[in-house]
């Protein structure tokens, strides 16, 4: 990136991400990600080890978070569930941000009918409430983790497309872009080297803000039986399994619920912090 002087705004502001909230969010996410990644070593039991004779044991020394209806260790499954949830979040964000940004930047830079076509398609997707569209897609496809990823990614990319299209449109009129064009730099090169890097800042903020949203949506889909299937460890699925036990066996639903809450919260805090840090108006302060 250092070869790109135009990327300066991004680079210049990055060290400013010392905002306490952003930092807290980042640390939290790092911890959650670490716990998920190291689940096979951290977890006290194999994730699908059942013990029907020890079903629904309250938290104790052997099972810190208790056991579920099949006698599986809830702590273990929360850790493994983190793998599923984070994997979904990362994949969805990567796929939808890449797709959305590429389409958006092309639309914004090209303008004219190219912009019209791309943005109208985007509008079609945005016309549906996101969760509703995801649910509809997940119903049609076979329920699985892959389905969840596809169903969410399809509803998520248009936001990035719209965001980066408006950024790209304003950047396309900047003098340095004009200059590049006058020098005969081909359009794809201009987009890749000038427009794209300079459109990324708001997308970055949006991605970090969306992490929580994706995890919540994925949990919602699994909760509705449209996502991860038994015996996969997934937070939404665990909440669904535990909800009717809440008054009698609170631990089954509480711990995965807290995991969802904590992760979504961490992403939001990070996103808010990033937005503040990267807000040009704030630099004046």
């Amino acid at each position, binding site marked *: 990136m250092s070869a790109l002087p135009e990327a300066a705004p991004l680079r210049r502001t990055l060290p400013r991400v010392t905002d306490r909230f952003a930092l807290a969010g980042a640390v939290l996410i790092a911890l959650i990600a670490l716990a998920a990644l190291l689940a096979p070593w951290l977890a006290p039991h194999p994730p*699908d*080890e*059942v*013990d*029907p*004779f020890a*079903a*629904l044991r309250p938290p104790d020394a052997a099972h810190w978070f208790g056991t579920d*209806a*099949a*006698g*599986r260790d809830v702590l273990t499954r929360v850790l493994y569930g983190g793998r599923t949830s984070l994997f979904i979040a990362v994949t969805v964000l990567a796929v939808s941000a890449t797709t959305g940004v590429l389409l958006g930047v092309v639309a914004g830079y090209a303008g004219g009918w190219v912009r019209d076509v791309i943005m109208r398609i985007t509008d079609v997707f945005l016309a549906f409430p996101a969760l509703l569209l995801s649910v509809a897609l997940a119903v049609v496809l*076979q*329920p699985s983790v892959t389905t969840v990823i596809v169903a969410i990614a399809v509803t998520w990319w248009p936001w990035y497309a719209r965001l980066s299209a408006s950024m790209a449109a304003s950047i396309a009129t900047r003098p340095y872009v004009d200059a590049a064009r006058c020098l005969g730099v081909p359009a794809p090169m201009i987009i890749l080297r000038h427009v794209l890097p300079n459109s990324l800042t708001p997308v970055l903020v949006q991605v970090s803000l969306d992490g929580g949203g994706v995890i919540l949506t994925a949990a919602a889909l699994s909760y*509705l*039986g449209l996502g991860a*299937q*038994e*015996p996969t460890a997934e937070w939404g699925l665990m909440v*669904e*399994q535990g*909800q*009717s*036990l*809440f*008054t*009698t*066996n609170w631990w089954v639903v509480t711990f995965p619920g807290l995991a969802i809450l904590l992760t979504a919260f961490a992403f939001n805090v990070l996103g808010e912090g990033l937005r503040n840090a990267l807000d040009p108006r704030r630099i004046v302060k």
Partner: protein
Amino acid sequence: MRWHKRLLVAGIAGVVALAASACAGGQVRGAGGTPQPSTGGTQATQSTENDATFVYAPNLDVVTDWDPATSYSNEIIAMTSIYEGLTRYDAEAKEVRPRLATEWSSADEGKEWTFKLRQGVKFHTGATLDAEAAKKAIERTMKSGGGAAYIWSAVDKIETPDASTLKFTLKYAAPMDLITSSGYAAHIYDAEALEKNEDDVKNGKLDAGTGPYTIDSWQKGQETELTLKAFDDYWGGWRPEQYKKVAFRVTPEITTAWQLLQRGEVNFVQRLNPQLFEQAGMTEGVQAKQTPSFQNLLVLFNTAEGPTKDVRVRQALQHAIDYDGLVAALKGSAQKAGGLVPPGLLGHTTGMEPKQDLAKAQELLQDAGYGPDNAELKLTLTYAQGDEDQKLLVTLLTAALKKVNVTLEARAMAWNAQWDRGKKGDQDIFVMYWFPDYADPYSWFLNVFRSADEVSFNLSYLKDEAIDKAIDGLPQLTATDQLAADQAYADLQKKIIQDEAAVAVPYVQTYQRALTADVLGYVDNPAYPNVVSFYDLKPAS
């Protein structure tokens, strides 16, 4: 034809509001069977008039079909209070008791049945019950061919020698006294009025039964979907303390239903999970009731195609199920099954209780060319979405099979989707519940294991002439020689479960219900799943 009913059963323990799941629970009126007409000398004790409403909290919509001929779903919980059959089965005494018929007899080795009708019975439409009306109702039901109309398939003709006598001539011997006690398709109704007012009947504005209650209001989709009121001219008469009003308040969430019960806003919750049930037993103001049901879980193996075509693989699967663990984890809401027929029914066998044996399973798989030393075996399984009990089976079975290098791809599906897929033979293992339409084991065999060109419920796809022949002989034996019938059922179960390994039967469900403590007279009758005989109840005074 049974899909409504399966759907209704699909959800058992499930509480997913979204899925079209449901719960079967059930019970009914109790012993004694028949209400006694309130002749002059009623009770000596003075009771005050009961103007309370008895509130039943079902977990899914009550009525999908108001036609007593074709009704085959959850509305049984209301229909059996509005409509009555010729007889009623008493599950405690294991006997058929009089209802609209006062006595009956059979002749010609069970091929001829004569029923004497009760005198002075009025339909809610105002008409009087006589043999002609009963005949018309049964013939209309038979003609409809929908729902459980098949129960009448033995009937060749119905005659009415006089106004109070109904004579059935059968094509083959069948236990008509049991058949007329069915909770489905055996209702006697005013067929003429029903046909004349078809729209009103469809919209729940009118009914044509003889039962103690009649429709007060029906609002589809409302929380309090249905209310019933006493039918003043009921042949059994009314005592002051009986409940004159009944309401059905649809409460999908099991925990919500439990809270409503504790607050006294509902009187009856048809099924609690074992944990709440345990709590109910210790809660003041609540009575917890549990009764073994006639409903068991069937794990059907595909005998026609795929890896399970090999009987050794099927036997290995039977051995891989952790029967004891499953029952332990279900914590009292199920008891281990000893064959296809639940206890309390003709043909129930003992000594066939299965046990998990992974070593044996591995050995069998090895013989069939699978197991840990060979290539991984992948099997597909479908089960009911939202059903926690079935999910538990899947979880335990998946974990057990993993140890013998078998990967289970389990898919939770809505009943219709699961059934459609099953009809195409598109899975290795099909999980579902089964319960009889009347208190007789025949339907497990006729519907589930008799071969049929077009798959309906024979989802193990078993095709065996000897078994078919044995099944076809069952009604006749039941009607003529109970001991021989019992033996025939036992032999068939051995064949189907042990020799063919077409099915594993992990458990029979136990109904775990709760009522407010002030309700007296409640008896669960598993022959009528989830039904409460409101007429037999009274509040404690």
